[in-house]
């Protein structure tokens, strides 16, 4: 697909417009965000019973929070490209001069923002329902930093997996099959970054986990950008 070179700043404008469209869609008919939030809280309650009214801390707490995030994200990933496939959104997009990478970036940003909003609700709920000694205010920046990086990785990988699965007949089945293996390293890294601050007394997070998380995000950002034409091309 050969398109004339876009003027400077057009790419960011396209991403902004597409991201606004995603949020407008979500505001008009809330589907993804309420589902993810309700699902997460339901899982925390489930853990509360599953662990026999037990409370968690350290690596177990990090694992519960991150796996719940991952499972909630799978719901969002499954719906991310639904409008493009079911309502002809992709055909409409192809008629615009916007680049494919702008669409993929907007999808990733939309999922990232959904996950960040999810965590605004889910982290306090998690601390209240499951965390042994609650969440210390001093630990909040570290928790927020780890979750922002983890969510970015899930969003970028999710946008990619969602686009692959969207073309298939059985996308609901394919999304978890493809996303879970791809996200295991990310969850492992985020767990290493989170567990010291969810332990009582708090421990120091090693800098290498932040670097590795950022690298993982960076690798998948590059991959998504590189293959975006293949996703959208007619």
């Amino acid at each position, binding site marked *: 697909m050969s398109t004339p070179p876009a003027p400077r700043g057009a790419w960011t404008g396209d991403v902004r417009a597409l991201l606004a469209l995603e949020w407008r869609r979500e505001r008009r008919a809330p589907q993804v965000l309420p589902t993810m939030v309700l699902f997460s809280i339901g899982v925390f309650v489930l853990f509360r019973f599953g662990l026999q009214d037990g409370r968690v801390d350290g690596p177990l707490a990090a694992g519960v929070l991150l796996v719940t995030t991952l499972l909630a994200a799978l719901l969002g990933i499954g719906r991310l490209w639904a409008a493009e496939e079911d309502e002809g959104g992709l055909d409409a997009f192809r008629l615009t001069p916007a680049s494919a990478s702008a669409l993929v970036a907007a999808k990733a940003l939309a999922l990232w923002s959904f996950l960040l909003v999810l965590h605004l609700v889910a982290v306090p709920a998690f601390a209240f329902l499951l965390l042994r000694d609650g969440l210390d205010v001093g630990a909040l920046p570290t928790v927020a930093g780890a979750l922002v990086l983890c969510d970015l990785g899930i969003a970028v990988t999710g946008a990619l997996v969602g686009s692959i699965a969207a073309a298939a007949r059985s996308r609901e089945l394919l999304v978890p099959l493809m996303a879970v293996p791809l996200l295991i390293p990310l969850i492992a890294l985020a767990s290493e970054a989170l567990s010291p601050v969810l332990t009582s007394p708090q421990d120091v997070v090693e800098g290498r986990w932040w670097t*590795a998380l950022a690298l993982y995000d960076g690798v998948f950002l590059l991959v998504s950008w590189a293959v975006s034409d293949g996703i959208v091309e007619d």
Partner: protein
Amino acid sequence: MPYARRILPLTAVTIAIVLAWIVVSAAVVPTDATEGVRQKLTYLHPAFAIITLIAFVAGAFFAWQHLKHDRPIDDLRSYVAIHQAQNFCLIALITGGIWGRAAWGVWWDWGEPVLVTFLIIFLLYATYQPMRFAIEDPERQARTASVFAVSAGIFAPVCFGVVRLTTNLLHPQPLDDPASNLPGTAGLAFGLSVLALGALFVTLWHLEIVHKSTRIRVRQLQRKVEGEDAVPVVARASSPVTL
């Protein structure tokens, strides 16, 4: 027909290397005094794992070429590399289990990160065919499969890197261990095992490409002679390249 002329010389070279590998591993390298015959698996199992990873990355490279140049042959190259790598991956998992049983007394150890990582990669690639053949439009099928192959091909080495970073390996690395008392010929046998299985992979890859290309050509001729309905739609949809 792509690659048909290379099959015979490749097969001859592969047979020679495989024979050298078998002779060196079985007869030249002495049997380990403490581990016994099971140590010989060092000249089989790791080579399968190494070639598997290289093949997945090669699949990603060809898929990238397909996305860049839109040539169906690149999609076929990528498909066949991944298909053969899946077979090698399965053999690596099975031989790993046999080694684990002999060395640790268990067929599988969930605490062993290298085994689990390999299983994760195998499971990821196990979705390649279901994903691919769930897409009916052949061109979109090829393009989407290439996107998958590039992503998964980059993921595989990243995944191994992360595992090595986050966990202490139990997996033995006797060739890197200065305390290991393996004889010098062990390194030769190991090198030959990687070379032999690499050559075997390349030969099998060529064979499958020639086989698939021939089948595609036959179907094209069949449709030309007998009409469009001669090849069922299902057969067209399950082909790795546009018919």
